[in-house]
């Protein structure tokens, strides 16, 4: 077995491109090894530093043995070009093929002899193709070259079995030499194995393996946090990103002036985390501290690096403080009319228009949700004002949150501030969902207004494109309803929303919106059910008999059915329905005349009577049910018909010779089926 080692040296490749290139290279190589039956022992390693993309396989087959194989060519009747093509693709002469009869006709055949292929040859022939198949999300050209790569590729080192493996890749030629100083690219060195390469860089403090680099960084941070008694969140993408932008990490413990801790913490955290790639730190009560951690890529021998980073954060926080002080004193209410100058979307008016619509939607919802109309109207009026602030201009991701802070600073009611702060939430499937009624009402109105508007101007998402993130918005809407046990009737709200647009002279086709948006929202609800691991047949049936006014009901019933379908009573429910509906719906001729009302006077035996009694009990249960239906209980109730239906089918022949009796029995089954169908459409559920 041999060693295979490849290094691609380039200028600094950004973090995400690096992760993606690693994944790509791994998959492409794995596929290539499998296709060519190249065996490897141990791992297929793909490592990266900002400048180096490395593949290393410790043990790989030196030679592949292929057994002889008979290959079928074109039919002997096909034109000559077909045979020529066959000869060419197998690199053989006409004398090497023979004719053979099969069931499908007469064909040319070629017997490929057993073969020994050297892995090295295969690799050098195929590596250029494998490398060019790396898909960069963003790639570039440089100089006079035609190659597209994440950043300029400078050299390729490739070793197989201790020797250099030659191949050409665009303008580059592989060798056994690489640059050892990433900065100036002046010094080079020959390497003939990964071990010597890895230990050379290790001696310089450079980790080639990103996993080792990552655990080094996190261990150092944990050590530091213990000694300084602070908390640091390592469970976010920052650690991965930093791992990809350093090769020899050094941890620096820094601080900024405590006076900046009066600025909203979100601003401080974003400044440190997203802009500067620092780790913010927290005390044991989870309050932000004025300490932060810098991961430098160099030993700070003269203390310049710590000093420099501290000065940068000082300057940034100074700027943030200036804007914070300026913005928080700008009266929110007085600024509302300035929203007339801020366009929301072409065809949907300004933000002022939008806020007026949201305010009215909120008014209606407040009646349903039993919250103060006055408060929710204030919250909706001021909720978009922060878009005009310098703070949100600088930190767009803090929209809403800043508005909440401004409201708090200006003495608005806490619930109003929170509603403004949370009204963009949830963002899709994973983020937190607001729980406070004012926040729910505002968030819901904002999203519904946007959905109706975009559907109104016919900017619905296509199957592949969703530039305005409407899917995410609809999922957020579904989550707001379901996770708050909300029973709002969306169809009325959509109608009302269309009317509000109309009042501002934006005319939409209300009927079309109602139809399209319903389908769209129900599709998102189905996705949401999928996330909850509900069975596919249940999901597909869940929306059959309900509409978007029943989102909560659809969700709860689907979940109830999903969790009980494997239990005995769940199975009973399905089998009762299946048996009854099969007989009933096979009766094609008179089906339309069967309306679900059996005449007890026509019953011939107790089996019919007992079933009739049971159906009445079930119906009584459902008609007395409050809006707090226990869906498990309801299923159990349905399953109780098991005894009666079994006895009925065991002893009664539906298909009586007397057509009146027969019809009455079908009516009885129809009654039963209807009671079931009112609960859920069981027809496509697999037992």
């Amino acid at each position, binding site marked *: 077995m041999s060693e295979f080692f490849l290094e691609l040296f380039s200028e*600094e490749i950004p973090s995400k491109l690096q992760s993606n290139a690693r994944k790509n290279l791994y998959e492409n190589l794995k596929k290539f090894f499998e296709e060519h039956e190249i065996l490897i022992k141990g791992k297929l390693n793909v490592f990266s530093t*900002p400048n180096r993309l490395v593949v290393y396989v410790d043990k790989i087959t030196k030679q592949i043995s292929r057994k002889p194989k008979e290959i079928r060519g074109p039919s002997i009747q096909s034109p000559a070009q077909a045979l020529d093509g066959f000869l060419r693709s197998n690199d053989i002469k006409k004398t090497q093929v023979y004719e053979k009869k099969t069931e499908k006709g007469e064909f040319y055949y070629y017997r490929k002899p057993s073969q020994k292929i050297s892995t090295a040859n295969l690799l050098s022939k195929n590596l250029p193709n494998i490398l060019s198949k790396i898909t960069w999300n963003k*790639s*570039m050209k440089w100089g006079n070259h035609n190659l597209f790569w994440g950043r*300029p590729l400078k050299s390729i080192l490739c070793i197989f079995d201790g020797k250099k493996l030659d191949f050409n890749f665009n303008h580059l030629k592989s060798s056994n030499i690489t640059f050892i100083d990433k*900065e100036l690219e002046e010094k080079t060195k020959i390497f003939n194995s990964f071990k010597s390469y890895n230990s050379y860089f290790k001696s310089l403090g450079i980790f080639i393996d990103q996993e080792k680099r990552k655990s080094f960084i996190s261990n150092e941070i944990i050590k530091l946090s213990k000694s300084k008694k602070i908390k640091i969140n390592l469970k976010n993408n920052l650690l991965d990103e930093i791992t990809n932008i350093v090769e020899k990490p050094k941890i620096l413990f820094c601080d900024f002036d405590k006076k900046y801790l009066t600025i909203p913490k979100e601003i401080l955290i974003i400044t440190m985390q997203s802009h500067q790639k*620092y780790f913010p730190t927290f005390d044991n009560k989870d309050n932000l501290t004025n300490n932060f951690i810098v991961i430098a890529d160099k030993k700070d021998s003269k203390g310049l*690096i710590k000093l420099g980073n501290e000065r*940068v954060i000082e300057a940034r926080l100074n*700027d943030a403080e200036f804007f914070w002080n300026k913005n928080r004193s700008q009266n929110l209410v007085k600024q509302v009319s300035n929203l007339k100058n801020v366009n929301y979307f072409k065809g949907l008016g300004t933000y002022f228009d939008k806020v007026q619509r949201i305010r009215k939607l909120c008014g209606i919802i407040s009646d349903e949700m039993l919250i103060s109309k006055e408060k929710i109207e204030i919250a909706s009026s001021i909720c978009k004002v922060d878009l005009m602030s310098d703070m949100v201009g600088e930190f767009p991701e803090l929209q809403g949150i800043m508005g909440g802070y401004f409201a708090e600073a200006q003495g608005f009611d806490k619930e109003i501030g929170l509603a403004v702060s949370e009204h963009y939430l949830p963002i899709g499937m994973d983020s937190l969902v607001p729980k406070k009624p004012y926040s729910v009402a505002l968030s819901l109105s904002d999203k519904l207004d946007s959905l109706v508007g975009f559907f109104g101007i016919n900017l619905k998402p296509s199957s592949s494109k969703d530039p305005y993130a409407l899917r995410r918005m609809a999922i957020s809407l579904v989550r707001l309803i379901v996770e708050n046990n909300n029973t709002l009737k969306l169809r009325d709200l959509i109608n009302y929303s269309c009317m509000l647009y109309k009042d501002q002279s934006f005319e939409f086709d209300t009927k079309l919106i109602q139809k399209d948006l319903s389908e769209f929202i129900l599709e998102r609800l189905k996705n949401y059910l999928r996330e909850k691991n509900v069975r596919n047949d249940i999901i597909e049936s869940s929306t059959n008999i309900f509409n978007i006014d029943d989102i909560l009901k659809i969700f709860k019933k689907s979940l109830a059915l999903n969790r009980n379908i494997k239990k005995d009573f769940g199975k009973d429910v399905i089998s009762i329905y299946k048996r009854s509906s099969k007989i009933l719906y096979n009766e094609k001729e008179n089906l339309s005349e069967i309306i679900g009302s059996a005449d007890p006077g026509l019953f011939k035996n107790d089996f019919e009577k007992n079933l009739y009694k049971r159906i009445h009990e079930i119906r009584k249960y459902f008609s007395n049910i409050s809006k707090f239906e226990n869906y498990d209980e309801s299923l159990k109730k349905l399953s109780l018909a098991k005894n009666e239906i079994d006895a009925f089918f065991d002893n009664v022949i539906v298909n009586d010779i007397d057509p009146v009796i027969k019809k009455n029995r079908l009516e009885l089954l129809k009654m039963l089926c209807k009671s079931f169908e009112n609960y859920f459409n069981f027809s496509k559920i697999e037992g």
Partner: protein
Amino acid sequence: MVSKKKKIKKKPLSFQDTILTLQKYWSKQGCILLQPYDLEVGAGTFHPATTLRSLGDQPWKTAYVQPSRRPTDGRYGDNPNRLQHYYQFQVLIKPSPSNIKKLYLNSIAVIGIDHNENDIRFVEDDWESPTLGAAGLGWEVWCNGMEITQFTYFQQMAGMECKPISVEITYGLERLCMFIQNKKNVFDLIWNNDGVSYKDVFHQSEKEFSAYNFEHANTDNLYKIFNMIEEEAKSLIEKKISLPAYDQCLKASHIFNILDARGVISVAQRAEYISKIRDLTKAIGKIWLESQK
């Protein structure tokens, strides 16, 4: 080389010496030293020596200082880090040489930033200029967490694919000098070695231009001027006179920036103005290229 570095550390370069040193360095690398373009522009990239010269296949190497105007960044001279007028040092080389990183790192070494002692990082920054119809990939260069340079491989300019690729290096001279001179406030920068500070030279200008940009610029007139300039540009494009047409484009762009600072441009209008300027740039790029044949 080592003894020189030590000398620098004893006394950091003044603002004007930084410029002189960079000019000397890039001149040695074969760059043509140009002077600033004599119109108001938002960045060194707008100088025709960058925009137009990055088009086409003729090799080109240049370096120059460009005063850059960003009306919205004005702070009346009160903010230690923000200015509506500042200096960029711009280098453009076509085709991008393979040792450009080394050339760059040596260029900051001669002005006192040694990459062995400071944490120099190349942080992802994909650049795009909607008004120029331009895009490039590269980095912002950080020195101990502070951005001191933009480093970009142009991929597209004036809506056209670049071939060969130019590399653009843009130093923010004030930031760079604040780092070299260890100053927290841009106005405290030492301009020369005879006691003149950045404040002496530019404080009044920051104050007055901030007031003009934010308060006094006559927007009705500016709208009119924009339209007149646009018209002029279109007629020059028709006549295939590329460089004067490009001048009109720069003027329009600056007028737009002042209107933006005055806060009278809505989101929708903004997109419209940008696309107007971009259309002009694209047309000019084409006729300039034709004129090169």
